[in-house]
């Protein structure tokens, strides 16, 4: 056990699974980096933010495959390799680039098992960075997990901390279905205690990072940290919150979300993705349908406006949900009860 960054936790998960299973291979743009350059230095980058650094040096060219900038071909190749005996982990760099290879994910990988009558296994992981907060602007900042969650046949993972990232990535690699694993690029330097040994965190089991009586906050990925921050502040004012980190949006741990709402009677959902048809709407629909009687206040969604992610820092700050906005949403659902009672 030692403190590890989100980046190190992912690197360690990849390394340990590559050691465990020779069928695990890495495919992606610049995941080593430097091949064909004039210096002769390979493993120059280890991915655009250094997450796969060292793995080419350790495992060599038969396990770590740099690709041309050619998402359709190499994501498709990862799908084909997964269907024929390898267990590839492909890095899509920025999830925004899925526009260049959605067919390989949506029409191929996701559908093989069903279309082929249950005969296919496609043990594929696609890792990609998501999220705003990096001044990366509209084409490098999206939180596209609802897009993947919408597609039957895919599993979608959004780790909220280094510990979670390692365990969930190991689970993803061992899983026999195609998994989209989304890493918030702002979190790579976040640190916490992470076991040195390999471990797997099962999919479809939400994690309660706070437990309280008044309000349930369901948050995804990086938003879990903001929700925790808000919950800790609110606690001082006597408002106690449960914070639910679903970990995976597909499968979604509906049972835990419903139980928490049954307990608290109030729900705030924090979702960094664009607000139309996102996870917040999905969770809101779930609760409205199955826990309607438990609700003491309207469900509140905290998210960005329905715009592309802006570039300028001042606008990006306005765009992203933060602890203060979560806090005020919680206070508003608490206040709702009071007005009702007074009336």
């Amino acid at each position, binding site marked *: 056990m030692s403190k590890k960054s989100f980046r190190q936790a992912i690197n360690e998960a990849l390394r340990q699974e590559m050691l465990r299973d020779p069928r695990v291979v890495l495919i992606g743009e610049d995941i080593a980096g430097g091949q064909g350059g004039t210096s002769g230095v390979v493993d120059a980058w280890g991915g655009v933010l250094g997450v796969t650094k060292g793995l080419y040096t350790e495992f060599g060219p038969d396990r770590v495959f740099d690709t041309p900038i050619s998402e359709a071909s190499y994501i498709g190749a990862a799908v084909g390799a997964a269907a024929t005996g390898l267990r590839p982990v492909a890095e899509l760099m920025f999830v925004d680039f899925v526009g260049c290879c959605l067919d390989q994910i949506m029409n191929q990988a996701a559908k093989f098992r069903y279309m082929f009558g249950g005969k296919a296994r496609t043990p594929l992981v696609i890792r990609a960075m998501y999220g705003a907060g990096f001044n990366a602007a509209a084409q490098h900042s999206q939180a596209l997990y609802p897009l993947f969650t919408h597609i039957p046949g895919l599993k979608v993972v959004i780790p909220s901390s280094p510990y979670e990232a390692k365990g969930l990535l190991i689970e993803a690699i061992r899983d026999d279905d195609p998994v989209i694993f989304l890493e918030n690029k702002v979190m790579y330097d976040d640190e916490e205690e992470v076991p040195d040994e390999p471990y797997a*965190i099962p999919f479809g089991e939400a994690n309660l990072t706070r437990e309280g009586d008044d309000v349930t906050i369901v948050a995804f990925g990086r938003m879990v940290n903001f929700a925790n921050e808000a919950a800790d502040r609110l606690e001082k004012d006597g408002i106690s919150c449960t914070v639910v980190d679903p970990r995976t949006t597909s499968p979604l741990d509906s049972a835990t979300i419903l139980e928490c709402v049954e307990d608290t009677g109030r729900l705030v959902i924090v979702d960094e993705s664009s607000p139309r048809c996102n996870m917040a709407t999905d969770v809101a629909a779930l609760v409205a349908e199955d826990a309607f009687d438990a609700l003491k206040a309207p469900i509140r969604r905290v998210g960005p406006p329905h715009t592309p992610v802006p570039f300028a820092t001042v606008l990006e700050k306005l765009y992203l949900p933060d602890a203060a906005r979560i806090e005020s949403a919680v206070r508003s659902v608490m206040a709702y009860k009071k007005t009702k009672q007074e009336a």
Partner: protein
Amino acid sequence: MTDLITPITMPKFGLAMTEGKIAGWNIPSGTHVDAGQEIADIETTKITNGYESPASGTLRRQIATEGETLPVGALLGVLAEPAVSDADIDAFIARFQADFSSGGAATTQTDQAEPTLVSLGELTLRVQDAGQGTGTPIVFIHGFGGDLSNWMLNQNTLSTGRRTVAFDLPGHGGSSKNVGDGKPATFAATAAALLDKLDISRAHVVAHSLGGAIALELAKTFPQKVASLSLIAPAGLGQGINMDFIEGFISADRRKTLEPVLDYLVHDKTLISRKMIEDIIRFKRLDGAVKGLQTIAQSCFPNGRQADDLRPVLASFAGPAQVIWGADDEILSPDDAKGLPETIKVLILPAAGHMPQLEKAADVNAALTKFID
């Protein structure tokens, strides 16, 4: 007047504790407290524990609020006689906080030993080595599903004037997950090898639950290494075992399913903290952990009964031996302590479950100190 003011600071329960949370104040500000009276509940990463006042006086201030998490050594409150003025107390607090923030916290961080990894052939064991002095060392052996943190409230106290060693058994905590055949005799051989590796030729053995059976196997095979036996709710003295606990501990993989299983461990169910549950779930997620537990359970508790009868070993042990048991143990019955030879001291602690060393740490520490010294 500052000598009349006593700071109440975040205690350090166990070597690994770096911070604690005020689960609740037991007395309001302005009340008189006696030394030793429990004034607050402190929740650590492992367990919630009552905090006994270090002195008598009036609790003049509660600095820390309920729910607040603070580093070890941080100021929680202030004790002083009514005669001390508020201004003096304010000045005291200001000075304390200034000193603490300018390095006090860092000092408490650095003086605690982190567990180290010790290689024994193919095995790696996580070992907490503490204390020094001329006294015969103590080795602590935890039970099924435990780890060295089971001794967090004991090892520190017993480390005065002697070396103490707590370690994670194979398959547990931060040690290798290979448990071999999972039998107490095998773990005893590992414990003996660890003592050799640490240059400890002879030690007082303090052992809990399944660790008790391991201690007895150690005494059987390596009697020269065992200076005395202190067995806490030990296995090996009867046949019965709460298999709902064993099987539940192995199979539960979520907080909701694990919590009722862990409730078997203690008399006061509120001691099972959220973090303790999370830590056990995290341990069980490690590759090989559940498999190791299954192997141990199959070897030690086949068909729902304890496999090894080690009463004869205890009866024939030449050195001093004592047995400590919680009266309300729901996992191994304190009745197993009946009928032992009269030379063996038996202490049954009321209002304690299967882990008296945590639940009644002061009583157990007193019994151990008295017995070993």
